[in-house]
Structure formats: C-alpha cells, structure tokens
C-alpha cells in the first residue's frame, strides 16, 4: 500500500480535523469583519510602500545621482536588493516544485504562502533592475523586439540580458503555478459564499468556474505536475543566471566559478528564512497552528541548516581558492573583504549565515518558535549582507587604487529598499485576507495519511509489529 506512512512521523495536521473543518478553518480568514490588527498592518505597509514609490519617483525625476553609487561602485544597494529579493523568492518555487516532485507532504501546509511570497518577492526584485537604469524610459531596449533602429539587436553575450529572460520566465511560471494551485481553493471559497452574491461571483470568476469534476481534478493534477517539472530547473537556473552577472565579469571577487551553486544555495537559504518569518506570524495570527505545525517548522529549519552550511562552505571555499589561485587581485579582494574598511559587513555575513544556523543542530532549538523566528531574521539580514559584500566590497577596491573609494547609501536608496519591503508586505497582507493562505485542497489530500487521526489508525495497523512495539516503549 503506497499510502502507508510510518506512524512514527509526526502528524502534519493536528487538531483532529475533518475535511469540513479544514475548509472552515482556512476560509474563515477570508470572511467576516476586517480585523483591526490586519487593517493597521496593511495601512502601515501601504504607507511604507508609498514612500518607496515616492523615492523611486524622486530618483526617476532627478537621476541616479540621488543615490550613493559612484564612479567606482556602479551598483550598490540596487543590485544588492535585487539579488536579495530574487533569492527570497526561491523558497516558494523550491517548495512547490522540487518538494512536490520529491513527495514531501509537509510542503502542503506552507506552499501556498511560500509561492505567494515568491511572486511578491519577484515583483519587488524586478523593480531594481528596472529602476537602477539611468534611462528607465528606454528600458524596453533590453527586449528583443523588432525595431526601426537599424539592424540593432541585443547583446546576447551580456548576462544582464540573460537575466531579463531568466527573471521574466521565472515570474510567469511562478505566477501560473501559484494561480493553478489557487483555482480549486477559489472554488471552495465560492462554495462557502451565498450563491449569486458578489463575493460568490468574484470567486467564481477567479476559480474559472471550477466545479470539482473528476476531469477538472485530473487536468489540474497534470498541469501541476507539468508546471512543477518546468519550475524545477528554474529553481536552479534563475539564481545561476543572476550569479552570472558577477561570475562572468572581471572584477576580482566576482570572477569565480563557484558563484552559481553558491547563489542557488544562498537563495534557498534566504527564501526559507523569509517563509519562516512570515509563516510564524501567520500561523499565530490566523490560527493555523494545526496546519503549520512544529513539524513543519522543524523541517524548514533543517533546510536552513543544510543550505546555511552549503553557503558557509562556499564562503570558505572562496577564501581557499583565492589563496590557492595565486591571482594577486583575487587574493587582495578577499583579504580586503575580511580585513578592509568594510570588514564589518563581511563578518556580519559570516556570523549570520555560517555560524548562526549551526544552532539548528540542536533539536530543541529547531523546534523553538521564538528561536526560529529570531534566526529567520538573522538569516535575512545575513543574506542581505552577503549580496552587499559581493557587490560593494568587490567593486570599491578593484584593480586601480587611484579609483578606490568608499560608498555610503543615501536616503533615496534606503527609501526604495524599505519601500519594496512595504510593497511586499502590502501584497502579502492583501493575499492573506482575500486568498486561502493554506492550500485547502492539498492539505485535504494528506489529511488521511499525515493527519493526527491517520496516525492513530496507522498505530492501530502496526500495533502487532515487533519493531513498533519496541519503539512504543
């Protein structure tokens, strides 16, 4: 029997749920009065987002000179934030695609929110490459459109162009995948509404008239699988291509072949940290503890530990290779990162990403909500600094010492970054209010296998088994 699961596994749904109860638990968050806490949070986020938009407007009106970037440090917070946001998005794709293919059932509890996070993070990320352009009004030049500007085409050697394709593909596939998953759940929400009401009509449209026929489910399953198949390489390719921006250049500290795997691991690392940050809040506020259990948290913490260690290994490998390469520029770049004027950022990165996640070797800490929340924040900070270290501390002292310089951000740069945080949170809060935060249909699909009642049945089933007998003691 393929559906047998060891009763030793922790149940992924607790609270003795029924299918009806699951529907009610999740749909209730989209109905009823608006909670003041939600409203306040949304208004604050929207205000921050508006400030970010203002800062972007300021920059477009006056020029990139309103930033602290300079002749030597051409990219600073802009691309740092871009890479950071893109990295954050990766957790969603990993959960929805790779974990689906690997049949990790615990993904069902968090995949919806993680995918939403992916979409919103990519939206935020996309702002930076667009608005870091000196002439944003000519941004369409990067698309290979037929044009009247002579036989003028894009430079297909440029990693920045690869980025355009990578990010836009990533965004469209992620959006499709996310929405596909939402369709049956929209149907569920519609069915909870009064037929013919406005709410019913809206969710009916959103669900594309889903009625839950067997054919619908079959097609839905196939599409999910196909999209999972499409997304899987994207998890690896997107950040690989983002890393090419650096890896294919000649700047010491950028020009390293380790960057692609290092970036992918870092992306998943930061993505899971962000998922944790959001879900730990959401499960509390929206009473989803039964669906996002400690088991979920622990699973994600294990991934944090794994990817954090991968990233850390990459850091150490870089140092070793810099020394071993015999390239004096490379050696200098890394010595400068670790000991130069911006060494504090390097050591922040090392501490947050390499050292701090190692606490998760302890099961107790892995299962501590408070500690997990704190770590997720630390990792988010650390991963931001990783990108800052890669970008700024490589650029500000490269080949010619005459052009070495320091870099300080301005309020405009900081404002845009904070603003994207606002945009992200606003979108996420709207999502949490109007969309099912947990994938209802998918959670239901594991209720009979991984729910707590199922575990009880499974114990029943194996109670005569010698192995389990000993274990039970």
């Amino acid at each position: 029997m393929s559906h047998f699961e060891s009763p030793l596994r922790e149940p992924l749904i607790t609270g003795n749920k029924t299918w009806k109860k699951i529907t009610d638990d999740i749909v209730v968050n989209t109905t009823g009065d608006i909670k003041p806490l939600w409203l306040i949070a949304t208004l604050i986020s929207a205000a921050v987002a508006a400030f970010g938009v203002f800062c972007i407007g300021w920059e477009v009106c006056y020029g990139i000179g309103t930033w602290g970037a300079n002749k030597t440090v051409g990219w600073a917070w802009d691309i740092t934030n871009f890479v950071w946001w893109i990295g954050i998005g990766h957790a969603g794709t990993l959960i929805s695609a790779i974990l689906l293919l690997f049949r990790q059932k615990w993904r069902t509890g968090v995949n919806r929110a993680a995918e939403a996070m992916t979409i919103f993070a990519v939206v935020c990320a996309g702002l930076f490459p667009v608005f870091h352009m000196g002439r944003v009004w000519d941004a369409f030049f990067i698309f290979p459109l037929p044009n009247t500007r002579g036989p003028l085409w894009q430079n297909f050697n440029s990693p920045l162009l690869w980025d355009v394709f990578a990010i836009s593909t990533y965004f469209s596939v992620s959006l499709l995948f996310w929405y596909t998953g939402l369709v049956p759940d929209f149907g569920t929400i519609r069915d909870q509404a009064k037929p013919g009401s406005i709410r019913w009509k809206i969710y009916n449209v959103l669900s594309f008239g889903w009625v839950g026929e067997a054919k619908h489910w079959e097609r839905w399953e196939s599409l999910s699988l196909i999209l999972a198949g499409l997304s899987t390489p994207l998890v690896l390719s997107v950040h690989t291509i983002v890393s090419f921006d650096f890896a294919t250049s000649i700047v010491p500290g950028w020009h390293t072949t380790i960057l692609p795997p290092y970036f992918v691991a870092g992306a998943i690392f930061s993505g899971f940290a962000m998922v944790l940050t959001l879900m730990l809040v959401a499960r509390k506020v929206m009473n989803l503890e039964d669906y996002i259990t400690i088991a979920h948290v622990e699973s994600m913490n294990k991934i944090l530990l794994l990817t954090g260690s991968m990233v850390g290994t990459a850091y150490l490998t870089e140092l070793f290779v810099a020394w071993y390469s015999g390239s004096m520029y490379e050696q200098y770049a890394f010595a400068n990162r670790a000991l130069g004027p911006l060494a504090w950022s390097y050591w922040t990165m090392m501490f947050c990403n390499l050292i701090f996640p190692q606490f998760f070797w302890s099961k107790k800490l892995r299962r501590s909500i408070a500690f997990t929340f704190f770590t997720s924040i630390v990792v988010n900070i650390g991963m931001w600094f990783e990108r800052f270290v890669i970008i700024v501390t490589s650029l500000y002292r490269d080949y010619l010492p005459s052009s070495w310089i320091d870099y300080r951000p301005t309020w405009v740069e900081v404002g845009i970054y904070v603003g994207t945080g606002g945009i992200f949170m606003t979108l996420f809060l709207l999502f949490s209010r109007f969309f099912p935060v947990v994938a209802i249909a998918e959670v239901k699909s594991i209720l009979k296998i991984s729910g707590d009642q199922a575990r009880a049945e499974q114990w029943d089933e194996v109670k005569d088994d010698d192995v389990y007998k000993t274990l039970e003691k």
Partner: protein
Amino acid sequence: MSEIKYWKSLEELNETPEYKDKASKEFQEEIPGLDMFESASEGSGTDRRDFLKVMGFSVSAAALAASCKTPVKKAVPYVFNGNEQIPEVVPGVADFYATTYYDGSSFVNLVAKVREGRPIKLEGNTDAPFTKGGTSARSQASILSLYDATRLKCPVKGNKAISWNQADKEITSKLAEINAAGGKIAILTGSLGSVVTKKAIEKLKVKYSNAVHVAYDAVSQYAIRKANTISLGTGIIPSYQFDKANVIVGFNCDFLGTWLNPVEFAKQYATNRVPSKENPTMSRHHQFQSAMTITGASADYRYPIKPSEEKLALIALYNAVAAKVGGSVISGAKAFANKAAIDKVAGELAANKGRSLVVSGTNNVENQLLVNAINGLLGNYGITITGRSLNVKEGNDDALATLVADIKSGAVQGLILLGANPVYNTPYADVFKSAIGKLKLSVSLNDRSDETGSLAQYVCPDNHYLETWDLLEPKSGYYCFVQPTINPIFDTRAASETLTKWAGEQTTAYDLVKAESAAMGSWENNLQLGFVDNSSAAGVSCNVGASIAGVNASAGAASGTEVVFYEKVAIGDGTFANNPLLQEMPDPISKTTWDNYVCVPYSWAKEKDMKLWLREAPIAKVSFNGKSVELPVMISFGLPKDTVAIAVGYGRTKAGKAGDNVGKNVYDLLKPGQFSADNVKIELTGKGYKLGMNQQYHTLQEDNNLPSRPRRYRNSIIKEANLKQYQAKHNAGNEDREEIKEHLLTLYGYHPYQSHHWALSVDMNSCIGCGACVIACNVENNVPVVGKERVYKGQEMHWMRIDRYFSGDPDNPDVSFQPMMCQHCNNAPCENVCPVNATNHSSEGLNQMAYNRCIGTRYCANNCPFKVRRFNWLDYQGNDSFGKWTDATAAEYMYEDLTRMVLNPDVTVRTRGVIEKCSMCVQRIQEGKLTAKKENRTLRDGDIKTACQTSCPTNAIIFGDINDGNSAVHKAFFEEERNYHLFEELHFLTNVGYKVKVRNKDEEPALYFTPVMKEEDIKGIVK
C-alpha cells in the same frame, strides 16, 4: 462489415465536385471580401499575409501619425550677408584665429577654434617660438570665462546700468576735477603685458599730471626684479633656458606649474627629460622645497626644507660652489642641516658650469641675490639665463605700499583699477575697503563687479581677451596679437580703448593695435601668425660681488612652525575662481577640487594621532601674523617637519556663482610681499569637513593591516627604473613584459583591423601632471562640471584624469603621474556586458559608445578595470524633461544659454542616465579622415591629434595609427622598449601604452611602496 454512411444531402451522398469544394472551405457560404484571404498563388493578388502586412502598416502608420509630432522649425539659411555668404564662414567648418593668453604671470600663444561664429576651443600655437604649441590648464579653461554670465553686461554706476557715454562723461569730468584740485589719481593694475594699455596709461598720465600708475601682483615676484637691479644692473625678469641646463636646482620654485611662464619652461624642461636609445641621458633636477608641487614631483631629488631654511641652503650651496669653482665665501650663517644634499648638488653644479640653472620662486631679495650669485659663479648667465626680459610679474611691492600710504593719508582722490582686486588679493584689504568709498572717484575696469569693483563708484567692464584687440609684449621684442574671435557678447569695451578715451582721444582698440604694430610688417601675416619676434638678445652679466654684498647672512631667522603660501596649478592667484573647469580640476598633488586647505606634514599627523582622511578632513584653526583662519587639514606627503602650506586664490566672495565661498581667503593674513610666516599655531577644532577629492588613496600599497601586494602588482600599473638601469638595459623596469607577451593567448580570436588601428602612447617621463590635458578634454568633449558635492560623492565626470601615486618615504615620497583615460581595450571587458550593445568595438580599434542606445545599467563601468567610464548621474545639461538637482550649484553652469555656447557642436551632449567616456576624440579622427579623403590622399601621421595631445606642454601624449608602420605611435609601441600596457597579463589588449618612468636617480626605485594608510581612518575625523 461495411460502414454505415450517414448523409445530409444528395450532394454529399454523391460527392459532387461542388460539394467537395464547399466542404473544404471553412465557411461554406460565400463571405463578402473573403477572396482577399485566398492564396495569392491562386491568382487573386492579396493573400492573408499581405492583408496582415497592410493592416500592420496602416495601424502603425496611423499610430505614428497620431502620436508623434514632428515639429517643423523654420530653418534660416546660415550667415548670409545680403545675398552673399560670408566667404570665410562655412557652416560646420571651423575657423582658427591666432591669439594670445596672458594672465599677468604667464603667456600662451594660442589658436582659437571658432565654429559658426563662436569660439569653442583653444589650441596651442605650434609656430610660437616659446610656448611651441603647449598650453596650460588655465589657458585651456579661459574659453569658458568668455561665456561667464557673471561678467558685467554694461558699465554700471553703483548698481545701476549706465551708458558708455555717460560713464565716459562723468568719469572724465571727475578726473579733471581731482587733477585740478591737486589730488592724486592712482591707476592700480595687475601685470599688464599689453603694449597698448600701457600706452593708454601713459596718455592718461600726460593728460592728468597727478596720475600715477602702480602695478602689483597678488603673488609677487618683485624680489627677482629688485635683486636683478643689484646683480644685473637692470630690474628685469630674465629669460630662462631649462633646455640648456644639465643640472637644474629649484628652490621653492614651481616652474612647471605656477612660476613665471610654466608652459615655456615645461617645453624646455621636457626636452632633456626623456632618455632614448640614441640619447640615453637626462638632465638632473634637484628641488629644495616646502610644499610639494608638480615641479617637486618631477624632480629627481627633492629635499624638504622649511621656508626659512631656503636662505641657509642657498648660502651653503653658494659657499660649496664657491669652494669648488673659486669665489668669496659668505660667513656668519647658520649651518644648513642637510649637508649631504648641498655637497651632492654643489658637486654636480660645479661639474656643469655654464650648463646648469638655479632658480628660486621666493619673493625675498636676499634669496634671489644668492641665486644670482650662484648662477653668476657657475657662468650660467648668457647661456641658461639670457638678458631678454620676460614681461610677466611686473608688480612693484614698494610702489603698492607707497600707494596704500597715500590712500591712507588722503592724498589719493581717484582710483582706477584694471586687473586689480586689492580688496581681495592684497594684505591691504582693510585699507582699500574703508578708503574706496571716501574717494572722489573710484572706477574698476575689471570684467565683473568683484570684491573691489562692487565698492567702487563705477565699473566699466573690459572685454574678455577672446573678444578684444590687444598687442602684448610678453618678452622684450616679442609681440603677440590678441584678436577678437567673436563680437563682444555684452556691452563691454577694451580697457585700452576706455583709458585712451578718458585721456581725451577718440579711438578704438583696433586702431590702437594697428597703429602700434604699424612698423611690424604685414598686418595680415602678423595676425595669421599671432606674433612678431623682433629678437633682441640682450647681453647679461652678473655681478657676484654686489649680489653677495646684499646678503645679510645672519638675518631672517624664523622660529616655531612655519607656513608657506602657494598657488595651485588651476586656480593660481584666484582671478579665475569663477571658472568651474578650473575649480573642478583636481590639484595634481592632493587630487582635491573646489577647496583650499592647510597641508600638514605626515609627521605632524602622526604626532597628533590624526586619522588620515579619505573624503573627510578635520578642521584646524591656523593662527599666524596675529590672525587666524579655519581650514580643513590635508596631509601632504613631502612637507618638512613643522611646516604647513596653504594655497592662496580661494575664498572669493564676489567672483560669481562657481567661485564664491570656495575655500578660505588668506591674502589678508599675509605680511606685504611675504608668502611665508613663522610661529604658526594649529589647533584641531574637532569639526569635520567634506573634501571633493577624486583620488582618495595615495599609494599602491594601501593598508597597514592588509598583506602587501607583491612588486608585480605595482608593476602592472606603474613601472619605473633609474637612468643607470635604463642605460644598461633599455627595458629596465619592464623586464617582465617579454614573459607576459609570451603568455598572451586566446580561444576567441582577435578583432581584425584592416585599415586604421588607433592608439595612444603616454610617456610617463614627460608627464609633469599639470592637468592641461584634463581641461582640454573637458572643453573638447563637452564634459560637464559637477560641483564639489558630487566630486565628494565620487560622481565626477572627467573623461581623463591624472592618477597620482606616492612611493617610498612618506616624509619625502617619489611621485608618479599617470594620465588615465579609456584604454580602448581590444579585448574590452565593458563590451561583453552591455545588454543592449551600446558600447562596442569599432573596426578601427576604438571602444565606442552609442549614447542613444545606452540605458544606463552601469554594468560596463563596474567591469572596467581602469574605472574610466563615467555615468551621467544627474542632469548637467539643463534638459527640460528632468528635475533640477540643486545641491551642486556649479553643476548648473550649463543651464545658462550663454554658457552652452561653449559646447563643441561636433560632440554629442550626453543626457542624464547614460555612460560616457574618452572616445579618443573620434570627432577629430572623423574630421581628419574626411579631410584626407577630400584631398584624395591617405592619412598622414600627425593629421589627427587628440585634444589631450595638442594641449600637452611636454608632448607626453602621442596619438596615431599603429597599422601605419611609420607612425610615431607605432614606433612607440613596437620599437620603444619602455612601452608597456596596464594589466597586460590580464589580456585586456589596451590601445593605450605607457612608457616606463625613468628617474635620474642614483638609487634604485623602491621595491615596495611604503604603507601610509591606516584602515580605521575611513571616517577621517579626529578621535
């Protein structure tokens, strides 16, 4: 089993041809217009594809027609005079007019490039016998002063505009009135140089018997004239021949940057400073100095001395030379500390009798007498010093002091100022400030209402030299023409004309010049050439005995910390402070723009545990002569212990938008005629100050707490050797290049260059770091000025810069200058990474920018190992579509319509948000190619010269085609063993080559650069 066939009609059952035909169609009923969609091959003409094409075209045409306005502007045929076009003006073709720049201290023979009636660029006049086509930063920048909107637009009385007639009438009547009453009329001028203006003053003196003419220089060299009266019997400044000297000894004398006529001296100096295979020799240059200058930086040996030690050093040197060549000895002086230096220098001088030159730039008669005596003993007069007078620095400190006394006593009733701004640039500021209002008449003829003019009753503005007629005599018998290149932009009038009118003669400057030059041969030829050289080589001999008799060996002791005042190469005495190009030109040594500061020695900073700065400096209060000034502190490597230096020429208050309140004025702190002081107190105030520096790191060895880079790292940037090494092996310092070349390989192939392959060769031996090329590049290529705030942020726009590196002992370092521009790599890192192909490689080896294509990702700038790519951070050109950023007032100078007239129409003005960089003056390349094509010939080497190349006073830069085996640059690249390329081992294949710097030192170059930076100093603020 047969299939059951269902049928709908008889036709279907019988499968008639009509039915078959119908069934094959999508629409079985006839649809009107459907034939359009039918295949063209069936003969009906239009098919579906054509339809889509037509539709696509119509829709886009309609959209275009509806959305894009194509404004029709009325085009007026250019420059028609009646029916006839002015013959010499062809639209799009530049005219060139010979003219002369003279700023009281230096002169440069120039050719003004005029496009469509507006001068846009100044080039050196290569025919000129003294400056030989060289230029200076100041003369290059002077083109912008022509379009300075701060200049007065007409004569003013008080603040009110008046007509010239009214001004003339009122002023002449007042002059007559004062003269009749027996009051003195003082005509206070700077160094004039102008024959016609001097004549006009003479006429004025004749007309008004009580008129006196007093000339003064803000930075005076009167002591030379005074000493020469004693030594030579004539109070002239002689001509110097640095090219004839094998040993040059300078004492606080910045003859390559600011002293007398630096362009002429640099030309001479450079002839002996480049060793070649044929002639592997160099002159030996010793420099005794306090503040590090570009002259000190170029010297082979530099000895830091306090200002008061100069006299001791001179006496010691005199005695040492006298001991070797015979002569009376001066006794009674304190011993000079660095005896080894004196022995070495004296030995070399004595060995080069008659082939040496000692100069001092200190305004101290005794020092100048000693210099004369040394030169006299060595027999240098007549060889390296000739009797032809150099008519610059004509000021007379004594006369100025007398005038001030007369003003105080009330004897002077009328004051006419011309090129004089005593309220700003003399120590007598207070006297002038309080007296000027009480005078019966005060008139300024300066071009703006400056610090003094704004207090005067009248300002009758002079023309800019590019819009006036004038005749200069910068050397005796050497007449230089100044001819207008444009009609006066404002209602201004040449000073010579104004003064002549006030003397009662109705005339014009043109007539004055014409009359004056009547005896000089063909007027037109003279104007075309720009000068007449009626050589009058006067003999000169030095009376050594009289010279040393005037020296009181024991006098002149100083105590405590001393301060020395110096001029910066760009700003000079401050007259041109409102020229943003000059303000933004980094000081060659400190690399700081837009400010003056107090330079302190490294030892002082260490003692005070002062943090070395990056961008911010602590502010110190500097007190001397009973006064004090607060200035940011700059560590100046090479200053002697207990000595500080401050630049004059800053702190203008009425210069204009760009020049006002930049730095601090120290003229009013000086003692008359003395450019140093002792008993200086410096206290750090604890405040910090932002400095606009465009190079923040000083050495190639960067941090104490980082591992040293091996020599090969330094070698990838600066290569140097000493002369002996060079003589032994012509590739000295460049030995690793052979190995690097062997290792160059690629999988990808190289760009083919079938016709031209442009390249630039820079000789680091010739380069003196004067910065003329930087300004020339700015003007030629419409490079915007960004203002101090932006330089501070590292967002300056200069396409060309001169990197400065220190090496060796931080108390007295060696300095290397490296002009840096786009290297036009043949394997360019920037080209790969541009997503939109905005930067790409030309078939002639240029790395070119398509500004219109650039979207400003700055990826190319990041990937440029030389960091020469510049991004338009803000709108510097006054584009209407953009918000105006206001934190950089100077950056707005191009917002003025008037100032925009200086723009070179051959070079695109870049919009906000695009990357720009050195194009190797591609517009000049194009022009040269077109000219050759029109003349139906191949290009010749030298047809095309870049702006930096033509401006260079030392010919350090050669441009040309390396595919042409006979070109100078080909020879420099392939035959000159000193040639190397930056980071050659990284395979950028640059088209710019550098030549190993050879110093005429006995010691080998330092293997490692001494660390002087500390890391925690990032904040640069005092603890």
